[in-house]
């Protein structure tokens, strides 16, 4: 079954690339030592960790001391938000974010509200974009943090971070972005975005699950989230997951190579072909997102009259893996908070599919979806009491 799998859910997670897996291999049984120890084999592990840190820093265009390794993207987001909040309570009490953040940011912000912080949740337009003017209007003297994701995981809309970063430049508020969906997928540096803090996660870019990182501009005040040993410059305790960290480093190197070879452009072409093919064959289809500012990997569509999971399971029966809404929020039956914030009607939000492509996808993969999905949609529409029939 796995052989014939067509995987189109790369925004949820990716397979570990062969070169990444190989880089990790020696750190399980051979160079397994705890890098905090002073003996020789431990020093080797510590060196491998620092080499990985440099690779991540190169991907993000920052200094290697500015990288803090964490246990996942979620932890990086939590560390940024709670770490800044608790560290800067003296300076102020107000945090700005958006309504379309990943739950790692949204739920952290909601928790901060319970701790007495004041939160502003910004609206987005119908393409999922925040306006810099609105950020500016929401700024207060006591705003200590603005956290706005780089690209949304569900619809792929990329935010105007540079403009927002510029208007924050002379403000006391720190600027954090959740770049879990963009790091390694589109070219940028932390200087381009003008951010102080930026979260990434290895498993979204062909690295292992269970490791992420937070970029923290030098001088940015932060409290640790995990207290304990003096690991990661006293900002993240816990024996380092050396194999995972080495894997993130290798994934960062691979991502740079792919970007240098315009792999992002190739994947965008495939994605555009998929989108065009589906629009050609399926009526009552709605595009969700922003065609000018979008991740190259992602297309999100709403199929009127039918529900997303039903389509997804039919595709799965043909060995095609896609997502309806965000994988992280499955286990809930609510419609995507992102689509709703964009003003998509609830029925259409329930009827959405996200296709997220990866570097290993082929034209044949795309063609198969274009061949199969219209029949599935027809079948489900026949079952649907909402469908008025072909007009």
């Amino acid at each position, binding site marked *: 079954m796995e052989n014939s799998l067509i995987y189109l859910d790369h925004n949820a997670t990716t397979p570990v690339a062969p070169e990444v897996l190989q880089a990790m291999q020696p750190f399980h049984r051979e160079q397994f030592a705890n890098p905090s120890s002073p003996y020789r084999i431990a020093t080797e592990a510590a060196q491998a960790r620092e080499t990985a840190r440099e690779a991540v820093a190169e991907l993000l265009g920052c200094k290697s001391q500015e990288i803090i390794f964490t246990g996942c993207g979620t932890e990086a987001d939590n560390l940024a938000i709670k770490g800044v909040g608790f560290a800067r309570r003296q300076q102020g009490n107000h945090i700005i974010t958006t309504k379309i953040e990943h739950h790692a940011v949204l739920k952290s912000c909601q928790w901060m509200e319970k701790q007495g912080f004041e939160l502003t949740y910004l609206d987005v337009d119908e393409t999922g974009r925040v306006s810099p003017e609105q950020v500016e209007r929401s700024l207060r003297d006591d705003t200590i943090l603005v956290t706005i994701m780089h690209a949304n995981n569900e619809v792929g809309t990329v935010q105007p971070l540079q403009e927002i970063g510029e208007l924050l430049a002379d403000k006391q508020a720190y600027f954090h972005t959740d770049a879990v969906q963009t790091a390694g997928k589109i070219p940028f540096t932390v200087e381009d975005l003008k951010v102080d803090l930026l979260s990434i996660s290895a498993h979204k870019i062909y690295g292992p699950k269970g490791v992420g990182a937070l970029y923290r501009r030098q001088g940015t005040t932060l409290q640790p989230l995990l207290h304990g040993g003096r690991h990661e410059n006293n900002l993240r305790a816990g024996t380092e997951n050396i194999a995972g960290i080495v894997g993130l480093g290798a994934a960062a190197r691979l991502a740079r190579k792919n970007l240098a070879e315009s792999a992002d452009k190739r994947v965008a072409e495939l994605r555009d072909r998929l989108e065009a093919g589906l629009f050609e064959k399926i009526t009552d289809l709605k595009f969700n997102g922003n065609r000018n500012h979008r991740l190259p990997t992602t297309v999100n569509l709403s199929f009127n*009259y*039918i*529900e997303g*999971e*039903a389509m997804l*399971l*039919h595709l799965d*029966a043909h060995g095609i893996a896609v997502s309806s809404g965000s994988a992280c929020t*499955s*286990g*809930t*039956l609510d*419609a995507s908070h992102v689509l709703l914030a964009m003003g998509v*009607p*609830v*029925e259409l939000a*329930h009827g959405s599919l996200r296709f997220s492509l990866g570097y290993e996808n082929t034209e044949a993969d795309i063609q198969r979806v274009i061949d199969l999905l219209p029949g599935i949609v027809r079948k489900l529409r*026949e*079952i*649907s*009491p*909402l469908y008025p029939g072909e007009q």
Partner: protein
Amino acid sequence: MEYSDKVMDYFMNPKNMGTMEEPDGVGEVGNPSCGDQMTIQIKVEDDRIVDIKFKTFGCAAAIATSSMVTELARNKTLDEALQLTNQEVEEELGGLPPIKRHCSLLAEEGLEAAIENYRSKQEGNS
């Protein structure tokens, strides 16, 4: 989350799907903005359901339970059909993931609504 084979079967190949000419009773329950809606139609002879059809907008569980409830209700008297519970529907399907339980309620309510509708029309006629 994982569906039983039987749920998947009833979802992929739903039985009694569609509409009929001149149904004797029609139930409509749910709401698309909640993620599911169901229409159920029955044909009644001698107080017995002799034909039954459904259409459902919703997830796999909603479609499978809709289909199963029509299977279970067919050839039952109206009173027997009213005894059908969502538990029975679920059990017949080999269980549902906990977060999908509410879907089996839709099916039960749909059938009830259709019988209700039939009986209120009968009263109107009599």
